[in-house]
């Protein structure tokens, strides 16, 4: 049992970047095709990452680099906690601690665009955090534990009890993945008012590390999506993978069919959906539990 958990955590550390990088590559290809273009190679994200690490290192403030490294380490740590089957609430807390390092890294430079992006990033975190915490609460209500390791051992997939939580979570995933309509703090294409937002001042390997951290984070988020579908039956793993792919495709589709909204609307929508979808679900579960 323990070995299994260790293996899964180690696999996460080793494989997450490759899996997510590849998904990202397909994302770019599919997006391009949705836009009527041919698009880059599916390995493009890896080329980009590799190049970033090969570029000369410029910096506007040296403090930035160590904060970014700390950000990366914390994200990986959160992932290890998650895939190692520990407490999901702590995973969420650890993720928000990581986010704080990103923010500090970004503001340490005193640059107008990264500052503006950071403020927006903070709003994004604020928009998502209730839902992330609620997901943990949802699992606790449905399964009776915060422990990922025990959640996967349940007999019925949690999604059966948590449809509202799932909807809410998928909704905030758009924010987390930095996809349109919520790509307000950093966008994958730079044509936006804050340029590259949080990452504006991150050069070469710094930017590479942030990208890598994002991949690790996305792996956790998709892992949580999968968690909704897992149960003690091994077949559910297939279901979880399908669910992850569907959600991922949905995010690409939404990305390509919507305009970037303003942060006020994002906050309103995110909180609104959280309260309505997750709140209702929460209330129902509470009632059922008596």
């Amino acid at each position, binding site marked *: 049992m323990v070995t299994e958990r260790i293996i899964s955590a180690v696999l996460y550390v080793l494989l997450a970047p490759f899996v997510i990088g590849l998904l990202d590559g397909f994302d770019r290809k599919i*997006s391009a095709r949705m*836009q*009527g273009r041919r698009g880059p190679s599916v390995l493009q994200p890896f080329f980009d990452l590799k190049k970033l690490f090969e570029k000369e290192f410029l910096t506007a403030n040296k403090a930035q680099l160590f904060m970014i490294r700390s950000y990366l380490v914390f994200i990986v740590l959160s992932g290890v906690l998650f895939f190692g089957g520990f407490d999901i609430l702590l995973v969420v807390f650890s993720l928000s601690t990581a986010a704080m390092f990103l923010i500090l890294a970004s503001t340490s430079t005193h640059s*107008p665009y990264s500052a*503006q992006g950071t403020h927006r990033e903070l709003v994004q975190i604020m928009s998502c955090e209730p839902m992330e915490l609620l997901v943990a609460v949802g699992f606790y209500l449905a399964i009776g534990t915060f422990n990922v390791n025990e959640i996967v051992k349940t007999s019925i997939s949690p999604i059966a009890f948590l449809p509202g939580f799932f909807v809410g979570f998928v909704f905030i995933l758009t924010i987390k993945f930095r996809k349109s309509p919520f790509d307000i703090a950093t966008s994958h294409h730079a044509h936006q*008012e804050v340029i590259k937002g949080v990452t504006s001042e991150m050069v070469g390997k710094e930017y590479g590390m942030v990208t890598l951290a994002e991949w690790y984070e996305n792996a956790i988020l998709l892992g949580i999506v999968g968690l909704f579908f897992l149960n003690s039956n091994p077949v559910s793993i297939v279901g979880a993978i399908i669910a992850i792919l569907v959600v991922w495709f949905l995010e690409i589709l939404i990305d390509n069919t*919507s*305009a*970037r909204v*303003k942060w006020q609307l994002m906050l309103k929508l995110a909180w609104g959906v959280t309260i309505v979808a997750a709140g209702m679900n929460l209330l129902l579960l509470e009632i059922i539990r008596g």
Partner: protein
Amino acid sequence: MGKRSIVPYGPQHPVLPEPIHLDLVLEDEKVLAAIPSIGFIHRGLESLTSKKDFNEMVYVAERICGICSYMHGMGYCMALEDIMNVEVPRRADYLRTIWCEMSRLHSHLLWLGLLADGFGFESLFMHSWRLRENILDMFEASTGGRVIFSVNTIGGVLKDMPNDMLKEFVKKLDDMEKEIRETTSIFLNDYTVKSRLVGVGILTGEDAIRRGAVGPMMRASGISVDMRKNGYAAYNDIDFDVITSNNCDSYARCEVRIGEIFQSIDIIRQAVAKIPDTEINTKVTGMPNGESIIRVEQPRGEAFYHVRANGTKFLDRFRVRTPTFANIPALTQTLQGCQYGDVPLLVLTIDPCISCTER
């Protein structure tokens, strides 16, 4: 200083295809003040009149701007034709009208794309520009250039479009019309797009006049003025209505321009149906002497060509007042109190052409 940020915006900025700089004073993201600065593209091309003769100036005029390059060339030629009392053959007038409207089409599609890019709707941007490529292909087939055509000359045009080429263009436009309609309906109906446009950047009709706004910017504030109604080129033979909207916001500007896309297609159809077979230019001799002010309706609004000649081959004065120049005071008005995220959008809603603004 408190809760206010003072930050630069531009000149190099990816949402702005052209350099423009603003000093912004923000509270959170609310813009309390925006001071624009222009001059990053100032070349001083009006002064070239002392170095290039009035014929060469046609090519300079075309390069005032690469987007409605055609109309700049035409406006300049019209001013000289007026001074030199040249009668332009009717076919040339029609050809000019068709190219003008094709320019408007490409310019508006380009603008729609940039707007979509401005609010982060990448696929819509791609789609608009893909549609626009069709128009550019027509340009290349008819003039040999994709963006700068060099087909105008004082006294007419240099290249003819054979009638079957025109017919084919009309057919292509018919095909495109449906696609354009689908694409533009996204701008008008999508929830996220509307959340960015509706009620953003209000400019009342009176403000529009006080600040000297022109073109779609003005028509979106409910003021019905379109220089084409003055009947230059072949517009006096064409039947069209001035498109206006009373919403006074960014959405209205979008609406007006989208309306004009279909209007342009219609005008091209009418022109192709009516085009006479005559010469395409008249030989011009002698030196210009006199003064003329020509106003034409460019995609972005009324452009001004003020030419003063003195009987030599070098002009005394060639002055262009481009629509964007006129719209900048209106822009500063709309920026007041908007959100930081709206800044690029509002800059885009005047459909800026800094190049021609700064000349």
